């Protein structure tokens, strides 16, 4: 029997870990992808994702609209990624301009896409964090600007500008990478 997100949240609030596991399974893919692309490392993404889900579970009472659990939890994730990235920068373990700091994905991309994917990873890592954040939420995760504003705390005009600038920076960086 399939449960709605709101029903799963209600069950999780009463301590049903099965329900919370179902919520995690539903949002893991999107949340994990975002964290990985924001932090440039699978290991860091896994840690942040676990922390996000733990915080979400412990704060479910603060989720005022259970049907929008995903948007609410995305806000936690965005904050955890920001916090983790600040920590990594302080420890000099993450340098956006250092190509070696960006982990290549292990997924076997088609031969013709491999070069483009590497160029994308590099270009993405060079974007200012706020632009990368807005670009990924808008174009990769498919959130509306209202949802991104909720998740990031930024205003919609500023977000649109960040997305535009990110797209332009990527277009310039990836020029010549698209063949055929």
């Amino acid at each position, binding site marked *: 029997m399939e449960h709605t997100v709101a029903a799963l949240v209600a069950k999780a609030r009463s301590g049903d870990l099965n329900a919370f596991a179902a919520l995690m399974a539903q949002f893991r893919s999107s949340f994990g992808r975002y964290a990985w692309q924001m932090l440039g490392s699978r290991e860091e993404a*896994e840690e942040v994702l676990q922390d996000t889900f733990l915080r979400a579970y412990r704060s*479910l009472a*603060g989720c005022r609209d259970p049907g929008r659990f995903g948007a609410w939890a995305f806000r936690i994730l965005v904050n955890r990624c920001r916090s983790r990235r600040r920590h990594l920068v302080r420890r000099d373990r993450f340098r956006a301009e250092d190509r070696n700091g960006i982990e290549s994905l292990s997924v076997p991309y088609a031969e013709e896409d491999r070069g483009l994917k590497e160029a994308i990873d590099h270009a993405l890592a060079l974007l200012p964090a706020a632009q990368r954040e807005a670009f990924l939420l808008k174009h*990769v995760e498919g959130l509306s600007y209202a949802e991104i504003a909720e998740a990031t705390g930024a205003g919609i005009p500023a977000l649109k500008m960040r997305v535009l600038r990110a797209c332009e920076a990527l277009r310039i960086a990836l020029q010549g990478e*698209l063949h055929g």
Partner: protein
Amino acid sequence: MGEPDDDEPAPVVRRAIELLREQPDLGPETERHVLARLLTDPRPGLPRRGLGHLAAIGGLALAASLAAIGLTRFGPGSKAPGLREVRFTISAAAASRVSLVGDFNNWNPAETPLRRVRATGEWSVTLPLAPGSYRFGFLLDGHTWQSDPSRPAALDPDFGTPTSVITVEHSAL
């Protein structure tokens, strides 16, 4: 999904977006770790139903060992050695029900209801708590969040809700 874009990205950026969406999933390990941490959380009052899911994702031995740990739930009125009784009160004349939610009960609004103790609208509950600091708040009628004005505030930037902090000292008794 979002509204129509004001500016459609260039073809190379659209291709980049397609590839970024193909990012591999982190896998069910994440859920397993989270569930294990929730199940072994030392804080009292943590709900621990749903071990069946651990079995379903291959953690049967883990589930069994965690279940064997001996899980304690605290509710109003129960008390164990080393705990101190702490009284929480709030004035909420218009509320029809009030819950105490915090680190000590996993922010579960069903866990710790307050009782109306005065016609003037004062609500109260007494909890046994181990020494330590706890974040908490009150939930009025299931939807209105309120902090405790008699306690220090702890604004949690993750959730944006006003939250109070209580520190339970070690008993001198």
